């Protein structure tokens, strides 16, 4: 490693987690830079987790003003207009997050995500995007991939009592423990665009329904501001589902109407789901930065209804050349 010791303060504060992932991993965390875009409840939970973990810096992007919906599922925003009045969501969250760990540099970046160029993204080791269109997700992912340095890319979205995480670590080398030994491994990840282009029939029959359902919901929401979609859109979504299923030779009954209805109507997040999904995401980012432990590949789904947290590998059966 680079010989920089952890300070006495860090050793005392991070003792319990150093016992989990080691001093080395802790050092790597302290040098990492994270960018987060779209601060809803789940992302707030994620930010809390990585700030507590002791990353080097965290940059927040969300220029929206605070509304009741915002603070209903985001515990970083106190429901007090005296506190949040006149500030953007990112600004209020930034103030709260700094409190959790003074050793982490938390800051706000204003502006439109998609207009920023590669040079901007180069400053970061991890980029997490939420509440944005499919087009934007593809765009940012591509910008990250074009850089010579590996920038880990994640999307996270929670609707009603469900959540989805997407992971792209490009070419990722890591170590894992098997009984007493340490094994070096490697994983190859498809880009976001590649992943969602995988024909549905190529996926296992029992693949999580949430995957298909959310693709439909997101496609319908495309071009509109996040959260705009509502029950009125249900007929359109059901129609879209039919079309997508036909196009993909997937039995339409596989994705139940009731599931879609839930996802359409429930635009608000459910706080315990934010905690669960934000926790899983936090863990994944820590794994990516520390290169310790097997990261999930490449989709994660959680649904309160069945209580399962499922990992789906949505990638082309053919080997990707990179």
């Amino acid at each position, binding site marked *: 490693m680079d010989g920089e010791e952890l300070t006495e303060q860090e050793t005392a504060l991070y003792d319990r*987690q150093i016992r989990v992932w080691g001093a080395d991993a802790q050092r790597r965390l302290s040098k990492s830079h994270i960018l987060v875009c779209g601060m809803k409840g789940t992302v707030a939970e994620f930010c809390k*987790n990585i700030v507590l973990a002791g990353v080097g810096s965290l940059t927040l992007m969300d220029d929206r003003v605070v509304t009741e919906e915002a603070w209903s599922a985001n515990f970083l925003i106190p429901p007090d207009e005296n506190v949040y009045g006149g500030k953007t969501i990112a600004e209020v969250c930034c103030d709260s997050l700094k409190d959790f760990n003074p050793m982490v540099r938390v800051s706000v970046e204003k502006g439109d995500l998609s207009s920023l160029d590669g040079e901007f993204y180069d400053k970061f080791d991890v980029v997490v995007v939420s509440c944005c269109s499919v087009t934007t997700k593809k765009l940012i992912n591509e910008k990250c991939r074009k850089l010579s340095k590996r920038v880990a890319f994640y999307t996270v979205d929670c609707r009603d009592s469900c959540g989805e995480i997407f992971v792209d670590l490009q070419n990722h080398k890591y170590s894992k423990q098997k009984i007493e030994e340490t094994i070096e491994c490697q994983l190859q990840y498809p880009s976001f665009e590649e992943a969602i282009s995988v024909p549905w029939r190529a996926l296992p029959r029992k693949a999580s329904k949430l995957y298909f359902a959310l693709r439909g919901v997101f496609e319908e929401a495309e071009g509109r501001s996040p959260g705009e979609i509502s029950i009125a859109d249900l007929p359109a979504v059901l129609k879209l589902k039919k079309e997508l299923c036909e196009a993909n030779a997937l039995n339409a009954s596989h994705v139940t109407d009731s599931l879609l209805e*839930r996802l359409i109507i429930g635009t608000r997040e459910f706080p315990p789901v934010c905690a669960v999904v934000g926790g899983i995401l936090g863990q994944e980012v820590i794994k990516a930065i520390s290169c310790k432990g097997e990261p999930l590949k490449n989709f994660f789904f959680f649904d309160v209804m069945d209580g*399962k947290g499922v990992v789906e590998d949505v990638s082309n059966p053919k080997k990707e050349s990179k």
Partner: protein
Amino acid sequence: MDTIEVSNLNRQFLFRQSHVGQSKAKVARDAVLKFRPQMSITAHHANVKDPKFNVEFFKQFNVVLNGLDNLDARRHVNRLCLAADVPLVESGTTGFLGQVTVHVKGKTECYECQPKPAPKTYPVCTITSTPSKFVHCIVWAKDLLFAKLFGDRNQENDLNVRSSDAASSSDHAEDVFVRRKDEDIDPYGRRIYDHVFGYNIEVASSNEETWKNRNRPKPIYSADVMPENLTEQNGNVAKNCVVDTSSVSAMASLGLKNPQDTWTLLESSRIFLEALKLFFAKREKEIGNLSFDKDDQLAVEFVTAAANIRAASFGISLHSLFEAKGIAGNIVHAVATTNAIIAGLIVIEAIKVLLKDTDKYRMTYCLEHITKKMLLMPVEPYEPNKSCYVCSETPLSLEINTSRSKLRDFVEKIVKAKLGINFPLIMHGSNLLYEVGDDLDEVEVANYAANLEKVLSQLPSPVTNGTMLTVEDLQQELTCNINIKHREEFDEEKEPDGMLLSGWTQAPPAKDDKQSMNDKQSIGNGGDSSNALQTEPADAVKDGEMEEISEPSGKKRKLSEGSKASILDATDGTRNHKEVEKLDDDDDDDVVMFDDLDSMTNKKKRLQ
């Protein structure tokens, strides 16, 4: 009752640096009110085992959520929730593992239906004579050496026990550890060093039987390791102007800065002597009253050093202070993410309980490695265990020599240690043999004290073969019936307590524990079980015991109203799994079954 510590702050995010030392309950309340000001929150800075939190208290609630860190407290709350008929959501985390379980009286298993593994204990001889792992050296250094030198002198201590004969606590042996009147600290330190690492090892080494199949330990003398004059090397102490005794440190004194470094034998030896010196120089008043505290830097340094030297003697690898502290302090490793996941899952279950959504209750396991494509695995709760002495009424059986064992043995080894009843009431029919309480008069107290010393068959109401004893805990509203069976002989090795309790399933030992968990004459790391080596009560272990995470074993029947489930039902998924409503129609939802022959046989027995 806990107060906030620095090491909590990496995950207990309601707390800040400025809150260190304050009450967790109170600060948590204040923090939550900041983002949900309209909540009604009452903070009790108290021990949940306090009698004021009785059944009436618990009856006030619709659901209880536990976030406890020791087994004793959890069992206690479990019993109160059963008595009050209030659903309990239990949980625990360790590193990347975690679980949430739901317990509803009469509907699901209670928390104790599946016995939880008690904290690890080690046989006395392993600690005193034949250590083979570093943890054995730690326990020796902490519970024997540290206790002997700095703790209560009157406490029984096996430090000089030889493996071949009975404890030889002759006057001569006692003198060895006490610092003589005009003895300088340096020669005293070396004398102790040479005695425990040199002389004692030579004596132990001479016993042929012990070392037949083991490698002999090497005696280590200070002169061999540190030939130089100590006063010159460790002269810092005299110049050390540290007034604040809590920051006194041998490492600082010797310039060893990194707690992650593994010391050499020489460094360990220097720390050993320096730490000893510092205790006498700066903390003399505390000597004789000290008990090991993982947050006591000097104590941790001393124990690490001593354990390392012993390890060197026995060919065991040395460890860093950081590692040693974790072992000696029973530190549970923990991260914010797992806790956040489990917290979310707890709330999800709590909401189901409040909505009385019985069919939807789940035990959820947070896994470190993906299993069957899952990182979060829900399992339906199991039906109550009919042989659970806590939530069912099944009596237990105890084999014991009623003419040799005293009532005291029964109380200590069975009632308290095994059953977790700390304030028992013991009856034989309508005769009260023993009880504890504040309202007893002198005569009663004397009677009970006398009873404790009597062998069972000699009690005022004789306890013999076929007797049924009733043990109660009034606070927990728990009643336990025990059938007594007289037995003459017990295997000294396998049943060193001279008792065998059955009908109460012993939990299987932890996977990596090759030592006998059933060995009752043993030493707990952190204090446990019925043994003179115990220096602290089991429930004082704070950052204490590992949260029990048991991987789902798939052995018992899931909770399904009116279903006579069989293995086939579970595996093919075509159970009476009701109108799906919001549940997806998938075939293989819900219960995850594991291939486990043992559990399948168990299951068959229970269905009969």
